[in-house]
């Protein structure tokens, strides 16, 4: 199944809303929002997000891989997550 980047971002934001109902009141609902500072991602949410993204895109989306790839945790934005999902859609087994 093909997904364009806008569609991927919209799905990622929808799933973040589901996993992080207690997100910051100031959180921007955009690609620039921080997963840590705006969405308060913690260890359980990492696991839940991975699974829900896999279900939504029917592909392997192993979020710890994205987390491990950044030097500064503040690089973990919604946009980076959407791009990570996109890159996984092209290589899924």
């Amino acid at each position, binding site marked *: 199944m093909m997904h364009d980047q806008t569609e991927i971002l919209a799905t990622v934001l929808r799933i973040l809303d589901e996993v992080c109902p207690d997100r910051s009141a100031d959180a921007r609902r955009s690609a620039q929002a921080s997963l*840590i500072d705006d969405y308060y*991602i*913690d*260890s*359980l949410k*990492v*696991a*839940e997000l*991975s*699974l829900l993204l*896999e*279900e939504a895109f029917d592909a*392997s989306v*192993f*979020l*710890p*891989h994205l*987390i*491990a*790839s*950044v030097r500064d*945790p503040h690089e973990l934005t919604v946009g980076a997550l959407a791009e990570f999902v996109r890159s996984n859609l092209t290589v*899924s*087994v």
Partner: protein
Amino acid sequence: MLNPDLPFASPEIEKLLGDAASATWSVAQDPLWNRPLDIERINDVGTASLLQHIPGFTSLSVVQRNEVIYREGLYHLHNLMAGENLGVFLAAQIIRDCPNDSLDCAYFTSTILADERNHMLVLRRYLREKVGVVFSPNPALARIFDELMRENSYEVKLLASQLCLEWTAVSLISSIQFKNPEPLLRNILAAIVRDEGRHLRFNRWVFAHLTNARIAELQPRMEEMFFETTVAIVASFFAIPVWQQYGFAPDACREYALRDLRARGAMRYFTRILPRQLERCRFKSDRLIHLLETELEQRVVDAHFELHPTAIAIDERETA
């Protein structure tokens, strides 16, 4: 023994095998091994303690609270190391028992074996050589490891060890990276996670290619082992050997830790979300969800009554 002239059934697995074979494992040569640990950062290893609301905890100084959290983090790293050790021996059994009509499963699992060996050795070196604290693995985990070693089905071994135990452990531990942790530990965890991403893709492939008849045949055992593995995972959150060192009574620890896990949404995660891993592998089970919802908490408590940890942490630097 496999005939080396057999084909690969899946070009994707053949490519993934190539990626694994050429992946560099350089963390063992990281120059940070030769430098002292960054003590300022090492206290930022863990998230809030499950005992944060127990009366004795709130009366500790900030330094002592950080020390409890740090030691809880080390306890969980020891459990991760024990899981990697199990992974080596389960992979060896899977290579022996998996289908022999193509090279895919056996040869990719040989890379899992090598990866798990690397993970175990690097975690062992970090915990013994750099940190100097040793914990026994949580007894509930040790018991499920033994059961998996006795399991007949390679598919059950693969699902319970890779998709339930390791996937959960690595997902949970990856959040350590949010805390800007001690740099060597950060590099070790990043290296482990890179390998686990490949394992996940392989596991998905295995379960996508099982026949419907095989899925039906395995369903009851999958449910049973998934449930028992989930009990062990949740039980392993209870860092009782650490808590004992600070004089907290096991009964109170169990009560407060369980309460804290509920408040964090962990019990919802383990009863409603994690079983969807099983569904992703084509084992949909309302019975399992019912079992988790009705029996998980009690089984976790029972596990601690039956298997009360006797091992106390040994600080090797202090006793040397």
